[in-house]
């Protein structure tokens, strides 16, 4: 009897303590992860749960994973997001990084331990590579280290990133960097990379080379999250890809991605990240052009400008205006830099990584057309008419012909399109100056050039935020004017307002674009005005842009128009009042005059 009672008593105690522990655990984890106000917690259970964590000797999330089944369902729902990061059993700390790994499939890295220090050699290699990357990107290039939790190392997780799809093909990624906690505009983050880079999909960048470029690439994303969570993704990828070659010059995987840009130069610089278009990754080459003109530091300064750029409305900050703002401080503009870049793409006059130049051109730069018979006009080729989205370019090649002594290329173009003509003769490039009319280029001695080696290249570059800008070319002066709607309702084109307010994304500029689209382009007189505006405004805008006082004056001049558009009813009421006032004043005027000659009492009757 006593024995039965003792067993029952013990069972009840165990059950009770189990239930009690379960509640404590719920509260403990809820509080630790900030889901429970601290005031509702009890010191007693905190001490108990801490003891549990200490005993386990595992970080909080790992112990959460371990205790998962003991938690209430409601607690599990609340804490589910904490398990978004991979839960791995082991970690190895280097100076700045904590490398998380496991010893079990499928996420285990190679577990060989040749130096017998109980750590897998690959994990040590991962730590060493990340430290190498840290040294280069932080200590050499001067970037600010990515933020972490106080006194914590930056978390890197090793995970099998490749799976087989439904057809048995390998699919996956090298790794990723994900935002964690956002404070102000700066976010902490963590990195997940493949556990060994051994899968065939990584070929020929298996093993160490795959690790090197991934570490360099992802760690820069970590830096980017710290600078400004609201970075524009295309430029983030462009920079992370660019820096791969700055840290590990010999791997050269980045050239795989710039090929698409050379194939499709008429796609915008800020095309969204995509393998098929070369958007994002492929734009790294723009950064190389910038660093060759300025220095490697310039890219960091651009990111520092982004760091100081406030986000508006919780959306990513478009990078082109940030780049423009940066280069205007240097007396240039993103448009000017883009033209220089477009020229360099053609001339191949790269001054850094010169032994790799042939890798850039493994697929040749795409030309809109190559002309070898003349004249060239709309009747002979439909490639004489070009439509470009914002910040995009098109190349036309003119092969020398004995029948054309001097070649004159005439261009009719929208305001935002810039043209340049380059001559390649005897392997030397020179730029042909624009004729005095500003709309044509003449290449004297065209017939004396060698058709086998020499050529003339016309470069058309849309250096505006407007899409669908047109250019028509000919060699007989017959190029037709561009259509009025060119660059119209496509979201840009208010050159003067953009210059005055500093960005085409400025809310006031958007208001003016809406006026243009809704009220001007819907009728013939309005369209005529817009057409005239586009013809004359770009040089005016350039002038305004460079003069701070003028910018303020133009802003003041535009203010009534914008106010009227923004507050239509108020504006109408103000106009009515104004007219009513004016009418009354006019009506009262003769009365006053009459009053000067008439007694007051009579004026009332009058």
């Amino acid at each position, binding site marked *: 009897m006593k024995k039965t009672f003792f067993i029952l008593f013990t069972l009840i105690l165990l059950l009770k303590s189990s239930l009690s522990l379960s509640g404590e655990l719920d509260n403990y984890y809820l509080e630790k992860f900030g*889901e429970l106000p601290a005031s509702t917690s009890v010191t007693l259970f905190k001490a108990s749960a801490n003891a549990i964590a200490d005993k386990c000797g595992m970080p909080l999330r790992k112990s959460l994973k371990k205790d998962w089944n003991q938690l209430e369902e409601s607690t599990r*729902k*609340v804490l*589910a*997001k904490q398990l978004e990061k991979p839960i791995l059993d082991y970690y190895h700390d280097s100076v700045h990084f904590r490398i998380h790994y496991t010893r079990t499939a499928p996420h285990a890295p190679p577990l060989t331990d040749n130096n017998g220090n109980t750590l897998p050699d690959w994990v040590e290699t991962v730590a060493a590579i990340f430290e190498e990357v840290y040294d280069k990107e932080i200590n050499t290039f001067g970037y600010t280290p990515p933020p972490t939790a106080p006194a914590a190392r930056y978390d890197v997780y090793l995970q099998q990133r490749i799976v087989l799809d439904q057809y048995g093909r390998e*699919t*996956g*990624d*090298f*790794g*990723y*960097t*994900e*935002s964690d*906690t*956002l*404070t102000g505009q700066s*976010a902490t983050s963590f990195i997940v990379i493949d556990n060994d880079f051994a899968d065939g*999909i990584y070929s020929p960048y298996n093993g160490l080379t795959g690790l090197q470029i*991934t570490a360099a*690439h*992802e760690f820069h*994303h970590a830096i*980017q*999250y710290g600078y400004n*969570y609201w970075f524009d*993704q295309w430029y*983030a*990828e462009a920079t*992370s890809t660019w820096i791969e070659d700055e840290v590990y010059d010999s791997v050269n995987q980045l050239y795989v*991605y710039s090929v698409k840009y050379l194939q499709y130069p008429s796609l915008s610089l800020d095309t*969204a*990240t*995509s*393998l*098929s278009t070369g958007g*994002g*990754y492929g734009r790294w080459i723009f950064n190389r052009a910038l660093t060759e003109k300025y220095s490697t530091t310039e890219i960091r300064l651009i990111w520092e400008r982004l760091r100081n750029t406030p986000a508006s*409305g*919780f959306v990513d900050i478009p990078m082109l205006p940030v780049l423009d703002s940066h280069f205007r401080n240097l007396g240039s503009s993103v448009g000017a830099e883009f033209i220089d870049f477009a020229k360099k793409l053609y001339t191949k006059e790269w001054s850094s990584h010169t032994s790799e130049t042939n890798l850039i051109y493994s697929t040749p730069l795409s030309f809109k057309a190559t002309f070898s018979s003349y004249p060239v006009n709309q009747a002979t080729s439909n490639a004489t008419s070009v439509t470009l989205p914002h910040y995009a370019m098109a190349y036309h090649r003119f092969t020398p012909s004995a029948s054309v002594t001097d070649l004159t290329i005439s261009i009719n173009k929208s305001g935002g399109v810039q043209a340049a003509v380059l001559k390649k003769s005897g392997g030397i490039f020179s730029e042909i100056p624009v004729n005095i009319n500003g709309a044509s280029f003449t290449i004297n001695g065209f017939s004396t050039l060698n058709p086998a080696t020499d050529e003339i290249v016309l470069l058309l570059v849309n250096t505006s935020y407007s899409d669908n800008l047109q250019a028509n070319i000919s060699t007989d002066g017959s190029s037709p004017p561009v259509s009025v709607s060119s660059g119209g309702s496509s979201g840009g084109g208010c050159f003067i307002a953009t210059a005055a307010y500093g960005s085409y994304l400025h809310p006031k500029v958007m208001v003016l674009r809406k006026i243009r689209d809704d009220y001007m382009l819907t009728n013939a007189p309005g369209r005529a005005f817009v057409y005239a505006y586009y013809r004359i405004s770009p040089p005016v805008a350039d002038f305004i842009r460079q003069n701070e006082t003028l910018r303020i004056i133009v802003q003041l001049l535009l203010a009534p128009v914008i106010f009227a558009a923004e507050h239509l009813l108020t504006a109408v009421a103000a106009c009515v009042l104004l007219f009513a006032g004016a009418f009354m004043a006019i009506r009262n005027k003769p009365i006053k005059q009459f009053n000067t000659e008439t007694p007051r009492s009579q004026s009332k009757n009058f």
Partner: protein
Amino acid sequence: MQLNWIPLIAIVPFIFSCAQPGASLWKPYSFNSSEFQPATQGSVPALWLRSGYMPRLDEPPRHAQDTGRLPTGTGSVAGICYMQASGGKKTDNPTVTAYPDEQIIIKSSQEGISVTRTDDAGYFIEILFPGEYEILCRGTGKPVTVKKGETTLVPLRGGKRMVD
């Protein structure tokens, strides 16, 4: 043989004829990885909206006199908190992952601060008085205007993943 069920033959079509107009007032919306838009044929609706009614996360009832009207003088917000993944050196694979059971903070200068949570699929619904609000998820959010009797759709990107 009792034939009491025969009138049902007439009643059933009548009920259906009444139900259809009610059901058609509900407009399905789907989430396209960045914003809500009217659901097209073939897409899976995420939310159903009807003026004057609380938004629904499931298909609305097929009868006209369904319950779920918004309380007098209120409007509502419905949305999703998600993580956006972009990039991919091996495959173009932009994806969206919802944050289930995530805290949503609703701020208003007039109504103060209130808190709700997303459901298992990352969606949330809240009835609010008309006015200007700021709705946040994982530190990011957006300004929202709530109108009487209407539902404002709010996609909130709570996280960002750079793949490769």
